[in-house]
């Protein structure tokens, strides 16, 4: 039948069109784009710079060197560098959350139903949301690194420009997982409020119960357990290993990638299966 219509296509047709639809809203609106960058800048600028933790360490005690102590605690002598990396994960968290909300929007405006009545695959509809959120987050991660460098991020001794690719790889995995999770939460909703509440409930704890602002190993035991199952922690750790630490712990880095990868595969599978089932009800 498709031949008679002059329509020929692969299983994945429409994926880029739908992804680009989301992305266009963002790159065609410079104001929106700039606004979305302000938040991480504020966090980095205000929190990262105001919490001048090295100033807490007295300089007059013999044998106590603030640089060494900071190094031992944060893996870098500069708290700002530590915290700037946390911002990458945080931005990914918020960007993927909004990608979840756009599903509700599409449903309410009828776009979802329209897309469902075309021969585009249900999986493609979901993938496009995941992909657009992921691409956005990866781009934002790049911008944050640039801004952080401008603000004084100190690269570690082991840093190699190719490590940036590793950063993008782990952000990709994290975002695929997170956006699938958020889409699975929102796909049944017809209103904004419920998923918004659920996401806020997930987001802040997920951010603070991670090593975004403070090393997990210094937290109370019970919290450490949470930090250890939080994919954000592994992402942050991997990015720190790749960017700011002086000696990369390759076993840990491998573990980070494995954990975030497993998280992405499991959550994406669950999310996509759930969404798919719901879309073809």
């Amino acid at each position, binding site marked *: *039948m498709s031949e008679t219509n002059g329509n*020929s296509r692969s299983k994945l047709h429409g994926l880029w*069109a*739908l992804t680009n*639809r989301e992305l266009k809203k963002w790159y065609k609106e410079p104001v929106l784009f700039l606004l979305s960058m302000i938040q991480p800048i504020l966090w980095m600028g205000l929190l990262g710079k105001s919490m001048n933790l090295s100033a807490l360490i007295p300089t007059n005690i013999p044998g106590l060197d603030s640089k060494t102590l900071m190094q031992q605690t944060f893996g870098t002598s500069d708290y700002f560098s530590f915290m700037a990396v946390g911002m990458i994960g945080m931005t990914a968290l918020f960007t993927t959350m909004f990608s979840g909300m756009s599903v509700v929007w599409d449903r309410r*405006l009828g776009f979802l*139903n329209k897309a469902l009545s075309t*021969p*585009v695959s249900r999986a493609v509809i979901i993938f496009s949301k995941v992909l657009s959120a992921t691409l956005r987050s990866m781009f934002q991660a790049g911008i944050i690194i640039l801004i952080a460098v401008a603000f004084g991020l100190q690269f570690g001794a082991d840093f190699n420009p190719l490590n940036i690719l590793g950063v993008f790889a782990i952000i990709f995995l994290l975002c695929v997982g997170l956006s699938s999770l958020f889409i699975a939460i929102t796909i049944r909703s017809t209103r904004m409020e419920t998923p918004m509440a659920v996401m806020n409930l997930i987001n802040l704890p997920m951010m603070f119960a991670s090593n975004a602002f403070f090393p997990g190993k210094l937290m109370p035991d019970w919290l450490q357990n949470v930090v250890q199952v939080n994919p954000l922690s592994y992402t942050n750790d991997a990015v720190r290993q790749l960017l700011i630490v002086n000696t990369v712990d390759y076993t840990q880095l491998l573990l980070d990638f494995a954990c975030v990868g497993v998280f992405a595969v499991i959550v994406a599978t669950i999310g996509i299966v759930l969404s798919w089932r719901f879309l073809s009800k």
Partner: protein
Amino acid sequence: MTGDALVVEGLTKVFNKNLVAVDHVNFTVKEGEIFGFLGPNGAGKTTTINMLITILKPTEGKASVLGFDIAKQNNDVRNVIGIVPQEYTADEDLTGLENILLCADLYGIPRNVAKERAMDLLKLVELTDFKDKKVETYSGGMRRRLELACGLINRPKVLFLDEPTLGLDVQTRTATWEYIRKLKKEFGMTLFMTTHYLEEADALCDRVAIIDHGKIIVVGSPAELKHNLGGDLITLAIKENDDVSGLIQKVEHVKEVRKEDGTYRIKAEVGEITTPLIIEALQKKGYAVMRLSLTEPTLNEVYLEYTGRSMRDAEESRENAMTQRMVRMRRTH
């Protein structure tokens, strides 16, 4: 080559195991006709359309579009149908042309073909001058036309229109009717539309079905349905005080005569032929007709006859009401 575009047999949708939205519905739509689907809010119109356009799975029964089963061959169905939804689904942040090309991509139409078709469609719906303007600057009528263009991008053989003129002013509504007539004439398309506006169904549809409480109550051409109501109503008064009921009753085609306060209310099958016959009969006996009017029943009467007069607001689903609110909201800003 003409056959049935839609065949619906025992189609049923039950929500949450107890809410019967569509209850064993049967009808066929012939190829090339405009078929109207009428009914009060919550009658099951949108649920039926959603099953036919393959976004809802029927609980029971089956239906086919041009021979393709909506459940088993849903991708074939999706290829041959076009949809013009009730809502304005076009993306406000994109231009008119970008929106049409996005629709084309969803059908997997190659870019060069899509561009050519998009330009033709923009011309058809008279949006060529606005193709590079963002949809947020469009008026309600322009948005509706854009939806129409999007729905036609895959050259559908069956086009579904869900309340195509909802909330449009009289001018835009009349213009939309013209587009719909043009589609039928130029492309020989089958059109399936739902509407609340009965004069719209009367003006456009070859046949209509009235659905209420999930069941089809009656199917037929607007003329047939009106005819079934018992024909036209002639009201007349004469100068003289005599009772002429018996005289009128004997006139050909007259079915019923009632005298109320000196006025005769006459039900007759073909009003425009019967009226002169009545006048002639009265004049022959020397009576002078003082006042006379002829009313043909509208589809409104047919509709109310079958669905009753009670309001249905309470049965309207929450989601539906919300969508309406959104439509209004977008239109006003």
